[in-house]
């Protein structure tokens, strides 16, 4: 792994659990302005911020007097491959080229593959994208098929796989065979690439509203988007902005299930990634994950598949913007949040993504029906992941389900401390866990001598 990303991760180890997060992020070797310049040279970033006035008006039509925040949308679909993932890929591919690799490789079924392929094409590097594409019947998720097409369009080799974690075994074999750079989503390069988005948001909103946004809603899966955006906001002196993580509720579906695979309409931005990557970030394909969402999120919200399709339809019909749907997860949450906020507050939907055949809501809903999922008009309570997609037909029905951060913090600690002999932990470990969870050192509860047989 050291060879494939050019980082000696062992150098950052500090204690039994502790490692130097900021030290790892400094491996990027460029400050925010330099990253922005590298991206600008590659056609990435400086995307338009748009005020969604009709969406705001719709929300206000169902809000109490004086409520209904102004909604803004950062149109990241304007990036070369159609999503904010170009920010992540641009820095990774830049680094691969600078370090003399002949090619890059990424394990991803989503927009990131298209972004790596696009940036590799510009840099003249070879590119392999390994995707989880088909179930055992050979039926492909149309959104992922579309991503296969885009990657091939950009000249990448696409290895399409059936469902299962063995994709990473194949990925490692390919890394070994080719010696390419691992353009992992979880390196410091990938996360630092998103910091420019957080900083741009702050600057955009200073122009629109005279101050940074009150709330930024981020579609959350692997944690890089939340982490990079929040870090960028802080670097742009907008640390007071609330960072809200939003994901699609797919609880009940197993992410390694051959049967469940084609019964979901979202291949990322969902709870199947968001929960595990929030509470155990180092489950990724690098030793230390640079995406640490629990350090940065102020709220964690779940929306239903039906609500995201509804938000996508509203964006089309009221704002004339055809995007997503997966990237509109944050939009669905933002519409619900805006209703409760004061009218003078501002909410930024932090990204959009391109749409196309396969990805488009019509394609996804037709595919859901073909796979036995009922699609109907209905409220959020009627959604059952893998069985029913209920689409609201009234803006007053938009809502979110809040997941308590304390619940996530305790889950993080349980998993971090499982299989660890606590007598091996020292002050650096306690401090690290406090930073990871944003809990006071006293609340970590491992500085105390442990009772015999304690867990």
């Amino acid at each position: 792994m050291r060879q494939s990303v050019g980082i000696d991760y062992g150098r950052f180890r500090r204690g039994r659990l502790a490692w130097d997060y900021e030290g790892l992020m400094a491996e990027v070797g460029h400050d925010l302005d330099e990253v922005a310049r590298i991206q600008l040279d590659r056609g990435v970033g400086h995307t338009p911020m748009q005020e969604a006035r009709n969406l705001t008006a719709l929300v206000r039509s169902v809000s109490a007097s004086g409520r209904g925040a102004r909604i803004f949308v950062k149109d990241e679909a304007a990036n070369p491959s159609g999503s904010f993932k170009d920010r992540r890929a641009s820095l990774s591919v830049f680094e691969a080229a600078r370090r003399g690799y002949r090619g890059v490789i990424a394990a991803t079924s989503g927009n990131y593959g298209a972004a790596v392929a696009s940036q590799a094409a510009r840099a003249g590097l070879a590119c392999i994208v390994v995707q989880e594409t088909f179930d055992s019947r050979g039926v492909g998720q149309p959104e992922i098929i579309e991503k296969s097409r885009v990657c091939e369009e950009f000249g990448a080799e696409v290895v399409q796989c059936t469902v299962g974690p063995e994709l990473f075994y194949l990925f490692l074999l390919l890394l070994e065979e080719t010696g390419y750079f691992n353009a992992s989503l979880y390196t410091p390069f990938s996360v630092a690439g998103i910091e420019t988005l957080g900083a741009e948001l702050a600057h955009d909103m200073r122009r629109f509203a005279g101050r940074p946004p009150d709330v930024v809603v981020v579609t959350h899966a692997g944690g890089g988007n939340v982490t990079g955006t929040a870090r960028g906001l802080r670097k742009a002196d907008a640390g007071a902005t609330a960072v809200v993580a939003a994901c699609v509720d797919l609880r009940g579906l197993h992410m390694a299930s051959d049967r469940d695979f084609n019964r979901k309409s979202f291949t990322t931005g969902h709870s199947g990634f968001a929960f595990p990557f929030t509470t155990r970030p180092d489950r990724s394909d690098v030793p230390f994950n640079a995406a640490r969402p629990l350090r940065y999120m102020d709220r964690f919200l779940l929306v239903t598949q039906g609500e995201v399709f509804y938000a996508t339809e509203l964006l089309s019909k009221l704002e004339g913007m055809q995007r997503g749907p997966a990237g509109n997860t944050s939009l669905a949450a933002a519409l619900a949040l805006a209703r409760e906020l004061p009218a003078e507050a501002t909410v930024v939907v932090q990204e959009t993504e391109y749409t196309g055949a396969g990805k488009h809501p019509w394609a996804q809903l037709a595919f859901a029906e073909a796979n036995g999922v009922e699609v109907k008009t209905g409220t959020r309570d009627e959604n059952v992941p893998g069985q029913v997609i209920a689409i609201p037909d009234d803006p007053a029905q938009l809502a979110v389900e809040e997941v308590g951060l304390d619940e996530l913090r305790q889950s993080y600690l349980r998993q971090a401390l499982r299989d660890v002999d606590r007598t091996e932990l020292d002050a650096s470990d306690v401090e690290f866990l406090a930073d990871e969870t944003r809990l006071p050192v006293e609340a970590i509860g491992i500085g105390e001598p442990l009772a015999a047989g304690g867990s």
Partner: protein
Amino acid sequence: MRIHRVELAPPERAPAIPDETAAVAFESWVNGRLVDDSAIGSRTRIRTTTGRLVEGDLVEVSPGYRHTFGSPPASLLRAGERAREILFPGGVR
């Protein structure tokens, strides 16, 4: 040209995966140019766009993409129409 490979047979699969996944093989597909003359269904080798030589069963000549936009679902259209009625009563100007 498109080849298919069985990467792992069911007994070789990772532990702790759901039963329905463990019961089937882990497979892969990749596109490239044919190295040797071969017929559909036969074992063959392709050269991929990165120059890799990969062996597998030839399953398709000139593979392409047939994913579509589908048809608009009634529930989605109704939701959009209602939102327009709220915002633009009396019809869109």
